């Protein structure tokens, strides 16, 4: 069992620090214990239980830092990993961007741990997968899926007195259900901290109905369309945009957040007025740890308010250089929405395309955040407020920044991937070619 309590982690970290001869030292200790079960062709393919813990040391002399990590914890190993980090630090050139370590900080207690999830066994997983397989078998479809749960702890301590600890659980499930002919495919994915929220049966039924409903897709011409993005599709395409909320790359002129002629787009109306994005580690639907790797506290932060960029993340170094307070990246984002369901958005659409998810998204132009990728596992044509027929998958070439300027409506946010994301109705979304993939 690699899940150490706060006190156990503290004991090891203190011991490691006691071996340090450096000017300053930071040690992190992380562990996880979890299992997974994978299935395909309506049978289990692999399953395992994995228990790991590792420790890493950053030692600094002046402005020279070295790092070393290890997954063995007897005194002799702990001493040697410290001396190895110190050896590397002495060999390293000075880092002009080195920031002195933070001292003691206060962090809120997170809500990331759940007892039921922590108590999961291989039998719990097999039973859940059994339910998913039954859905596929009963409908004469093929299921391939993955269920994984883990309990982890993360802790960090430094020689200036900072100590942070977090314990969390997660359970994640995804399944692709396809028809036997290979002409239809459906997909769902979901993750929670709390096992009791995970309804494998209901999720599998959605994937099965998409597998059946997407069979016999018709080809329609690529071009600009109004799209309704399910929360998963929206989450897929917005991930890289969230990573762009970084002051440094914007200031350096190499991001979509860079202003022509220098500076950042902080304070600019970059998106439609109905776009509001924030992060909050204490959000009960989407809890996260309350500190980041630098030892900075994570707090509720508005990133976009009424379409205006309100904050960019500043590392401690960049904040000092710019004379502002550091602001860490969020671990998860909430995009606010309304009360409408996905069905409501479909009903209000005269002509459009419903997208279940996107796939293989890659950056084409980092300056405008132009992305390319494809639709997958259920793409449908909507006319007069109803789904009319399944359509063949498209490749898209589109920027999420442009997309969030074309928002017609946002529905009720749901937990999807690492965010709370609403279904979205977007006009003029660019599809550039057709794909035969199913």
């Amino acid at each position, binding site marked *: 069992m690699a899940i150490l309590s706060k006190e156990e982690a503290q004991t090891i970290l203190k011991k490691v620090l006691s071996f340090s001869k450096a000017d300053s030292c930071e040690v992190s200790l992380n562990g996880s214990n979890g299992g997974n079960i*994978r*299935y*395909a*062709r309506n049978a*289990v*393919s692999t*399953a*395992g*239980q*994995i*228990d*790991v813990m590792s420790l890493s040391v950053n030692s600094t002399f002046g402005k020279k830092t070295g*790092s*070393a*990590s*290890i*997954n*063995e*914890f*007897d005194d*002799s*190993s702990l001493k040697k*990993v410290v001396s190895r980090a110190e050896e*590397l630090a002495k*060999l*390293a*050139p000075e*880092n002009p961007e080195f920031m002195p370590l933070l001292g003691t900080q206060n962090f809120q207690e997170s809500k990331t741990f759940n007892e039921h999830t922590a108590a999961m066994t*291989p039998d719990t997983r097999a039973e859940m*997968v059994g339910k998913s*397989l039954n859905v596929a078998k009963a409908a004469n479809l093929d299921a*391939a899926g*993955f269920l994984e749960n883990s309990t982890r702890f993360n802790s960090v301590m430094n020689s200036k007195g900072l100590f942070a600890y977090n314990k969390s659980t997660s359970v994640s499930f*995804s399944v692709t259900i*396809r028809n036997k002919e290979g002409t239809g*495919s459906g997909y769902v994915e979901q993750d929670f901290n709390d096992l009791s929220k995970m309804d494998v049966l209901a999720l599998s039924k959605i994937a099965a109905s998409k597998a059946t409903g997407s069979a016999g897709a018709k080809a329609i011409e690529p071009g600009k369309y109004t799209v309704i993005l399910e929360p998963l599709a929206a989450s897929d395409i917005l991930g890289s945009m969230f990573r762009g909320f970084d002051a440094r790359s914007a200031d*350096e*002129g190499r991001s979509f957040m860079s*202003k022509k002629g220098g500076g950042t787009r902080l304070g600019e109306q970059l998106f439609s007025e109905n776009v509001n994005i924030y992060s909050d580690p204490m959000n009960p639907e989407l809890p996260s740890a309350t500190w980041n790797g630098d030892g900075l506290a994570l707090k509720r932060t508005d990133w976009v308010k009424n379409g205006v960029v309100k904050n960019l993340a500043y590392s401690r170094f960049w904040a000092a250089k710019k004379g502002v307070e550091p602001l860490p990246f969020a671990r998860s984002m909430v995009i606010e929405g309304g009360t409408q369901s996905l069905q409501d958005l479909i009903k209000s659409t005269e002509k459009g395309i419903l997208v279940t998810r996107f*796939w*293989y*998204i*890659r950056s*084409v*132009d980092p*300056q405008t955040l132009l992305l*390319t990728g*494809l639709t*997958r596992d259920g793409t449908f044509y909507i006319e007069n407020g109803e789904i009319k027929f399944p359509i063949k998958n498209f*490749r898209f*070439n589109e*920027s999420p*920044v442009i997309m969030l*300027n074309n928002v017609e409506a946002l529905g009720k946010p749901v937990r999807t991937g690492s965010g709370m994301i609403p279904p979205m109705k977007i006009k003029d979304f660019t599809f*550039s*070619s057709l*794909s*035969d*993939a*199913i």
Partner: protein
Amino acid sequence: MRRRDFLYLTSLGAGAAMLPSLNTFGRTISVEEALIPVDVKLKKQMADIALNAAKSKGATYADVRIGRYLNQVVATRDARVENVANGESFGLGVRVLANGSWGFAATNNLDNASIAKAAELAVAIAKGNSKLMSEPVQLAPQKGYGEVSWKTPLEVNAFTVPIPQKVELLLNVNSEALKGGAKYVSSNLFMVNEQKYFASTEGSYIDQDIHRIWPNFTVTKIDATSGKFETRNALSSPMGMGFEYLTPKEEEKIKGGPVTMYKKRYDMFEDVKEATRHVSEKLKAKPVPAGKYDLILDPSHLFLTIHESVGHPTELDRVLGYEANYAGTSFLTLDKWESKKFNFGSDQVDVIADKLEVGSLGAVGYDDEGVKCGSWDIIKKGILVNYQTIRDQAHILGLKESQGCCYADSWDSIQFQRMPNVSLAPDNTSLTAAEMVKDVEKGIYMFGRNSYSIDQQRYNFQFSAQLAYEVKDGKIIGMFKDAAYQSNTQEFWNACAKRCGKNDYRLGGTFSDGKGQPSQVSAVSHGSATTRFNGVKVINTGSKLG
């Protein structure tokens, strides 16, 4: 007896008194010790504990992998070092077949009791899951090899090269770029050493020492008036080699084209100097007019197209549906293989799967289920003739043995089918790239990997390059920007018109191909000579924010 052996055998490290559940097998990762592998006798003892425990609980087959994975990263930016890190992970994974089902468990607690417990847990998982199986796992026969070993052929173990030497190399590279007017430059060295031991109930005890290295950089320039920026990455390749890859040799260079290219020795200084010039040219390059072009693809670019459009769709697990929920399936269904006439590409397309090529990322002696490695044809004169398989798939193709494509990225990952090196054979002529260009009326000559995206069955793809040169009437006349080609795999490979000769053959590769759930990475090379594809659709990807 060395101290670490003593600690293992007595199970009584000092840490154990405080935390009995913690590992007590003490080792270090100092450079000196990193060079000393764990004693093979000790690994055999640990393996036998796992195998015996699995058998005693009813496993019909078991294998155990004891892995020590070392990695080192040196990362720099401009005139400073961003990170120097040494990572090490050591532990044991045991996989068993019981009641016809697989089970797996892994631990880094390497005392005898914990090893046995992991094996027992793997058997319990297998038995628990067997009720969800529709048919039992069928393993292709495999003989035991006894005690054998294999090492990456190398001249200089990169882990023996002092850190200051690596730092100096990278900072000098950065300095060249900054001197050439780069606004920013970052450069990195990644080094991996897998010390892995495999043992199975069939009597194999295989000790392997595998090395990989990857130098890379990115040079950025910004046009102050337009606010536009451009970058150029290194045209190096990750290799299954030691530090000798970074010692340039003139005979390993190909000169005479618009870009100097490298075979099995890389000149990082020369490349960064060229890159710094290229970025300025990219800022001034002409936007590509969309349309059909003949593409001349350098191996530094073509490797990724081979990887995505030939390597992945010929993975048998994808064909069968085992990756349906993650990496995807494949358009190369079994009926296409069975027909023996599926026209994957033109008669220029000979694709070889290989696990042996010296210097390649995929080269090993044995795979991660104890199968001796080899090479075989996948596409022969354009026709699909084979796939990539492991032991529990071989029977599906009527094969009597596995093709040795099993790999796990760590001791705590379950091994499964991964891509071998998949390479396009060069032509038997001595055609050079410069000669190839002379025949092209309207074309684009591409170098280096950039944006890449392909659908989950590997039909529709879009790729772009680090450098795209306009070719007109047999001459390179300038640089294009915003060029990407979109095509369909079968159409694209049927447009393969000509390959250069073996003197132009080079390896490209990827350090971190992702597949599986939980996701695992693997490193794989793809060789080719410069190759021409006729009449491919090119789009202009230029875009603007309002």
